């Protein structure tokens, strides 16, 4: 990447990413000065599009680290060559996700309060430690990979990162799993569900990034790498679909959950469409076929399947987060309910542009961090140097 053309493309991409970040920051500033009235959120749908972006990035950040774990912990050479890129993507996505989460706060300037006042019964407070710990462990892990003298410690750091990432995604799932109030959540299944979702989403982000890097360098992805990554992603996609199915089946079994299940799967307007067409079809079945049919996954097939998985992830999170809040709280079971505050009525949430820009700003931040990291350090997988298996 040393030619003049490459350099020009790098600065152009950096400029584009920088503009995206600036737009996100401007949107956050607007949300802070005008208040959250500038968004589509209200007192019923209190978490909106920024949370869809932030939770996608944080969940994918932990999942993307799997590539490094398979390499360092289980000693797979093909994955080991990809471990640095996997670590970099983890840090970048974590930073992007946290940026969105922090800037969406009602009082983002009080982030120091969040860092100095802890209620240890709060899953959110645990997550503050899980996120900062993750960043620190992955930074050390990367260091052990790049600094030759520290190489012997790489496996230990890899194991620590692997264990921590399980804790982190358990924490993210538990943000919802510990909520007794709303019918969409309050399930112990959400912790393992988020872990499995993170496998697929993280690997998808890794595959997309890797494809762009190989294309930039004019190199084809080795057939073995392509085949193994495709197989792994297919397994993750199938496992996620299975757990989502179990989540809805358990809900469909309990009489008190019937109305909610019918809402997100059949009657809820946009939400069933996003679930079936977005998550199940585009986000799971189509990529699964693309990944398991050998003729389909060669060339751009793998990256295309990964892109579909990411689209499906956004559809899933939109239904899970927004749909879960739009459905009215059941304060009076067995009663028809109405009030001036939307009791008994489905909330209508329409995202507004500052929310979208803030979310995209977080993605841009992750993009910029990845772009600069890849430019400055050797993150390109060196397959030709890999020992033959």
């Amino acid at each position, binding site marked *: 990447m040393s030619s003049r053309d490459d350099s020009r493309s790098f600065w152009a991409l950096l400029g584009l990413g920088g503009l995206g970040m600036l737009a996100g920051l401007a949107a956050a500033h607007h949300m802070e000065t005008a208040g959250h009235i500038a968004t589509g959120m209200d007192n019923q749908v209190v*978490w909106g599009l920024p949370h869809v972006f932030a939770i996608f990035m944080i969940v994918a950040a932990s999942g993307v680290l799997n590539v490094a774990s398979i390499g360092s912990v289980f000693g797979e050479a093909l994955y080991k060559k990809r471990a640095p890129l996997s670590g970099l993507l983890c840090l970048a996505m974590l930073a992007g996700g946290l940026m969105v989460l922090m800037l969406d706060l*009602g*009082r983002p300037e009080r982030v120091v309060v969040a860092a100095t006042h802890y209620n240890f019964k709060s899953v959110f407070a645990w997550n503050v430690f899980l996120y900062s710990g993750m960043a620190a462990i992955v930074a050390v892990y990367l260091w052990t990979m790049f600094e030759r003298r520290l190489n012997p410690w790489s496996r230990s750091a890899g194991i620590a990162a692997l264990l921590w990432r399980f804790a982190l995604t358990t924490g993210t799932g538990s943000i919802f799993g510990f909520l007794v109030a709303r019918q969409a959540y309050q399930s112990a299944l959400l912790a393992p569900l988020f872990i499995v979702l993170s496998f697929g989403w993280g690997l998808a982000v890794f595959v997309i990034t890797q494809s762009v890097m190989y294309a930039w360098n004019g190199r084809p992805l080795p057939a073995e790498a392509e085949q193994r990554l495709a197989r792994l992603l297919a397994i993750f996609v199938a496992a996620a679909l299975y757990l989502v199915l179990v989540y809805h089946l358990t809900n469909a079994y309990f009489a008190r959950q019937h109305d909610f299940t019918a809402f997100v799967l059949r009657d809820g307007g946009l939400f069933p469409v996003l679930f079936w067409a977005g998550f199940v079809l585009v986000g799971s079945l189509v990529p699964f076929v693309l990944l398991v049919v050998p003729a389909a996954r060669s060339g751009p097939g793998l990256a295309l399947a990964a892109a579909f998985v990411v689209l499906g992830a956004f559809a899933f999170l939109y239904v899970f987060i927004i749909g879960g809040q739009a459905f009215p709280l059941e304060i009076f079971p067995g009663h028809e309910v109405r009030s001036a*505050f939307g*009791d008994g009525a489905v909330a209508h949430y329409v995202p507004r542009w500052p929310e979208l820009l803030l979310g995209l700003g977080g993605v841009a931040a992750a993009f910029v961090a990845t772009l600069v990291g890849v430019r400055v350090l050797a993150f390109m997988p060196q397959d030709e140097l890999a020992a033959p298996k």
Partner: protein
Amino acid sequence: MSRRAVLGAAVAALAGVALAPGIRLIEVARAADGADGAGGAAGPAAGKGADPKVRWGLLIDTTRCAEGCTACVDACNAENGLGTPSRPTDARWIRKVEIRELRTGRQASVPVMCQHCAEPPCVDVCPTGASFKRADGIVLVDRHSCIGCRYCMMACPYKARSFVHEPLHDQKPDVPRGKGCVESCTLCVHRIDRGEKLTACAEACSAAGHGAILFGDLNDPGSEISRRVREVRSRQLRADLNLDPGVRYEGL
């Protein structure tokens, strides 16, 4: 520029970005801590802490609550400077919910506000401890440490909390509020801490001739509310969650 230099510059810049606002914000936080006493919501005016022997609560007689009457809601809005809420983004600390039982068709009109749970989920989930329960059972939000994450609103089974979506004007000195913070019914804590024994909603309900809202100390066996709770069948909303709300309903 060498790789090492770029890395060094990046680390220095990151450290600067991370530290500079932190140092500034610690000053701000200290200043805010110093101003805590003026906040008014931290404790009774007399300087004594809230009395742990007391459990403030409400008993709402739905058989006396008139459909269409909004005296309690209007009084709460006026008392706390909430204006006239009309949109889903406006703060509502109390609301009238009209219910009709699907099986029997039986109707009732029910005022719903923060239920001041003994085991409040909003307090459990609050990352900074801004949501807290006073010794006398009143659940409040410390406006100085609320970061506006809205996790408490996700956790509340009663939709009792509101987020301040817009800049505020003409606040009541007794009821400080903050844009970007979460808030809910305080059980008129400013009145209680002045030694008054009546919330604005209960007062307005009596003035309107209904007398459907009774306020008092649930722990005092001699209080009117304790006597009524003992003698009349009442229930708590979402009793299945075992949150032990301090608000009870009669005639549901």
